[in-house]
């Protein structure tokens, strides 16, 4: 019983982690109609800069700020130098260009930091674990991820629903020409949104650095999940990204936790074991197929 609660927590935590990444991605797509495969690169930049600063003896706060600044700056530069020229182009061109950016960032990271994966300590005050459930110590850091995810979701909601900038973002998403005609500098709005997305990806990278391996190419393994999230949630919808992320997190965690056991009940053979391993790897894609079959444009079409 407690195991189920623990696994639910694990699912939520993975979900919020994915939300931090997918919110930026879906925002960029929704507002700018741009497919950005290089989103994971900002995540990687955030993780690398945070690990480097904290490895140099700086506090977690400094590492966080430095990483956010670096990721935001990368986003800004990428938008100004590369993506700005691609808005009117086909999605395929955007995919090609941003795929190129992935290679560029991965190789750049190797040139600056070398092939050696980096190490980042969990901040001391978030280390250790709490006995949340009787007999089950749960890592404090993972609980913190859930909390941070909730805060970011709330902050994003307020930003988009309650501020002038948020209003412009929403307006830009629904009618680009009209908002330009009303005198809003749409170019800068786009740059800002893109940098915001990059910033959030960098933030996710900082959070991930103590838990995951900080290595070149770390963004791509999680980017695939992120795309599943935004497709399920409805491309362009931040609300959809939140719900999609939690769904994917839960299905993935619970699938990995329980499918082998369930199939083991049916038969104890090698084949059941192999099937369980494959099925639990596939579970989120099955979820995606199911959602798309019922709601072809995702849960919250923008």
């Amino acid at each position: 019983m407690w195991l189920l609660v623990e696994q639910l927590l694990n699912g939520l935590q993975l979900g919020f982690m994915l939300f931090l990444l997918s919110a930026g991605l879906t925002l960029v797509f929704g507002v700018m109609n741009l497919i950005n495969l290089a989103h994971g690169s900002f995540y990687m930049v955030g993780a690398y800069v945070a690990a480097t600063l904290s490895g140099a003896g700086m506090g977690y706060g400094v590492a966080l700020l430095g990483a956010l600044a670096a990721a935001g700056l990368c986003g800004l530069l990428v938008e100004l130098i590369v993506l700005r020229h691609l808005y009117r182009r086909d999605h395929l061109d955007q995919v090609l260009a941003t795929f190129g950016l992935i290679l560029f960032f991965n190789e750049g990271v190797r040139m600056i930091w070398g092939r050696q994966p980096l190490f980042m300590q969990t901040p001391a005050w978030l280390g250790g674990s709490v006995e949340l459930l009787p007999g089950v110590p749960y890592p404090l850091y993972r609980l913190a991820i859930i909390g941070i995810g909730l805060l970011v979701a709330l902050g994003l909601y307020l930003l988009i629903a309650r501020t002038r900038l948020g209003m412009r973002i929403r307006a830009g998403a629904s009618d680009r020409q009209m908002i330009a005609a009303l005198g809003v500098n749409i170019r800068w709005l786009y740059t800002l949104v893109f940098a915001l997305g990059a910033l959030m990806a960098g933030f996710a990278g900082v959070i991930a650095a103590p838990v995951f391996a900080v290595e070149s190419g770390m963004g791509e393994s999680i980017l695939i999940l992120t795309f599943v999230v935004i497709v399920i949630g409805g491309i362009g919808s931040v609300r959809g990204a939140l719900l999609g992320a939690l769904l994917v997190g839960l299905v993935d965690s619970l699938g990995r936790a329980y499918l082998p056991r369930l199939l083991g009940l049916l038969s104890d053979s090698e084949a059941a074991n192999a099937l369980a391993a494959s099925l639990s790897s596939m579970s989120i894609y099955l979820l995606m197929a199911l959602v798309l079959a019922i709601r072809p444009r995702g849960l919250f079409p923008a």
Partner: protein
Amino acid sequence: MNIGTLLGALAALTLSLGASAAQPVKIGMITTLTTKAGYLGEDIRDGFRLAIEQEGGTLGGVPVELLVEDDGRKPGKGRQIADRFIRKDGVRIMTGIVFSNVALAVAPKVVRQGVFYISPNAGPSKLAGKGCDPNFFNAAWQNDNLHEVMGQYVQDAGYKSAYILAPNYPAGKDALAGFKRYYKGRIVGEVYTKLGQSDYAAELANLRAAKPEAVFFFLPGGMGINFLKQYQQAGLAERIPVFGPAFSFDARILKAVGDAAVGVKNGSQWNWDLDNPANRRFVAAFREKYGRMPTLYASQGYDTARLIGSALKATGGKPEDQDAFRKALEQADFESVRGAFRFNRNHFPIQDLYVREVVKDDDGIRNVTLKKVFSDHGDAYADQCRM
């Protein structure tokens, strides 16, 4: 014919003779230098180069030229490079491949063309058993070896139950099979995770609930770093001891894992502290030249170079004399940095295998040799080899 032409012809003849004497033997190295796993190939290459440099540009007194190409971990690219090495450069000796899937695409093809392939790493069961070849040698291990040694160790240490994990791909299944070949206790969980997985929270919760006495995992590269960090954060490190093959605990990975790796025991055929003259010389020279600790991959690259050197010496630098060169390789007449080394009938090593423990001391986090578990250990596939 007048005297002038004769002299000219003689001069040309001497020139060409001179040129052929100075022509170094070409060694083609196909290895993985890019992608996340690029450091594996880098260490193999650096170890190999160190051996050449120590002998002043020769191996076994024969001048050699090392051609290095990156396969990007792709079997197709490996094949292309091999073709080019053979056709354009006239390479007769090849080495370098890190990954078994690349080795399976390249090695059988090149040995059929009369090239010697000496593997410094990948040792898939297929090439050790039915697919063995007179021109294929492996100077590192058969893939299962480093898992087998942990199976035996966990068995000897008296752990009654084990929870075992590996990625869901062929090498992962081989790894757990290798462990189970020698571990006879109860397996309370056998889990195959997604290749490239980052989050292991669900597996760790199940693991805790299964209450095993020991955990064995094979998760190469970043996956292992993720797993160990999260294992420690989940508070499991103090409760259930972890075991694995050396692949997840080389000097570079230890730096990225930090304290979470301390206390982990892992199986290897080599460690920096093995006490023999060849190893002491190798470790000191490697640290001096490259400014870092060698990994087991570097030791394998170095040994491969010196094995090739021994055969070049015995044949006077003539790999084209295939029978003589093969015989010389089979002798393995070189001082391996891992101590005793000889070839089995399938051209895979018979060697000692050790368990190392990760410790933290004044020199940082590193492996120390704990115990020799197997002496003169071969592999499970040699009997299937007909040659």
